[in-house]
């Protein structure tokens, strides 16, 4: 099937070629275009349905399958892209930058929460860990945003995303324990548990396979990982909207304004901290936009589970509501176009 076979390449080079006219994008047109994209609208439908107490719901095993698919696809495409353009020495530097951000951002987040919110040590440390780590769906939404604007970025950013998931967990635990002799058996998740976390394995494994199999692999996998990708993402975001809406409905009352405020300004702090790194590394606009987005995003899958084990006294209603109910929608709707405008300016 020759026409089909070359499609992913056409698609990707097409996306990369037309990068020029995005200079015209102002932040406002970018924002309004983003707000009317199918994926944001599906999120809004889910959010609205949950807030209006509709019984619409996506079965959990299927929602999990959708998220596995998204990680497989984004990983594989990233790897195949690296195979196409060749690996880049910058990859290692960028991973290093990501790891530093993931280790460091929780310290800033913790300090902000202790200074300007009523949250105690445990809750602050747990929330902080979430904001050092990343949200892979936010990353995917940002890639989608870039692709639909034909902005170039490197496939290996997926590896950067994977490397930023775990370090923040260690900082969060350290923040909670610092200076407190824990009489009880400490229950830190082991490094193996953190690093062999399902989503990291799926991302890195698919990335490796995409890299190894390259263009041939892409030809085989494209009708699965490329063609239906955006549709699956839209359906998954419907579910994220439902989850965020239910979370908001049941826990938002419990959060005071300063805590909610943190969910809105912390992504901007993350983005601000990542900006000098992006300049220092001389990243392209696309790569920079993704790094800023990663820094600005907050985990809602891996870190909550780790916090239940390591810091059980921290209240899940707080960190889950903040990262999934406040920061995720903020990034999806407003953050991504913003980070892209900034990345464009510094690149």
């Amino acid at each position, binding site marked *: 099937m020759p026409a089909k076979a070359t499609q992913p390449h056409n698609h990707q080079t097409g996306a990369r070629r037309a990068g020029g006219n995005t200079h015209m994008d102002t932040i406002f047109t970018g924002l309004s275009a983003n707000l009317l994209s199918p994926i944001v609208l599906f999120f809004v439908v889910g959010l609205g349905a949950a807030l209006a107490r509709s019984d619409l719901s996506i079965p959990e095993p299927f929602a999990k399958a959708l998220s596995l698919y998204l990680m497989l696809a984004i990983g594989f495409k990233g790897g195949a892209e690296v195979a196409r353009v060749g690996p880049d020495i910058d990859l290692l530097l960028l991973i290093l930058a990501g790891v530093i951000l993931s280790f460091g951002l929780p310290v800033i987040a913790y300090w902000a929460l202790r200074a300007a919110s009523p949250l105690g040590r445990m809750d602050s440390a747990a929330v902080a860990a979430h904001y050092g780590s990343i949200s892979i769906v936010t990353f995917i939404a940002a890639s989608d945003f870039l692709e639909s604007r034909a902005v170039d970025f490197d496939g290996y950013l997926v590896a950067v995303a994977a490397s930023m998931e775990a370090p923040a967990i260690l900082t969060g635990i350290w923040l909670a324990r610092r200076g407190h002799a824990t009489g*009880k058996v400490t229950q830190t998740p082991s490094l193996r548990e953190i690093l062999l976390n399902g989503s990291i394995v799926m991302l890195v494994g698919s990335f490796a396979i995409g890299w190894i199999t390259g263009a041939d692999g892409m030809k085989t996998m494209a009708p699965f990982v490329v063609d239906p990708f955006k549709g699956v993402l839209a359906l998954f975001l419907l579910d994220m909207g439902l989850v965020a809406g*239910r979370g908001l409905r049941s826990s938002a009352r419990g959060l005071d304004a300063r805590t909610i405020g943190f969910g809105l300004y912390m992504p901007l702090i993350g983005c601000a901290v990542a900006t000098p790194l992006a300049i220092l590394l001389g990243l392209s606009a696309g790569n920079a936009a993704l790094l800023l987005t990663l820094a600005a995003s907050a985990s809602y899958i891996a870190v*909550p589970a780790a916090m239940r084990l390591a810091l*059980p006294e921290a*209240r*899940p209603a707080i960190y*889950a509501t903040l990262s999934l109910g406040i920061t995720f929608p903020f990034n999806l709707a407003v953050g991504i176009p913003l980070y892209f405008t900034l990345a464009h300016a510094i690149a």
Partner: protein
Amino acid sequence: MKMHPKKRIEIIIELPLQGRITQVLDTQDVFGYTIFSAQGGRGQEGPWQRDGIVGDSGRMVAIVCIVDPARLDGILTQIYAVIERQIGIVSVSDVEVVRADHF
């Protein structure tokens, strides 16, 4: 039919904690247990629903373990050490089993 008195322990616990509890059961030489995934519920932290959750956190499972009464106390002490700081409910009831082997 000849029946043998045993204890049925039912541990309702968050999914991320499951591994720690089964580890305790394994070291206590419990002969077996069976795990059921809950679909939803409510507690002091509010209601939850499996189909409205992403990830493992926030979901509950029930671990059912039938044991010999003689082992009960040792097992409960160990389980309690794990769930003390965690969300979780441990209840024990009397049951009779048909076969006395493997308990």
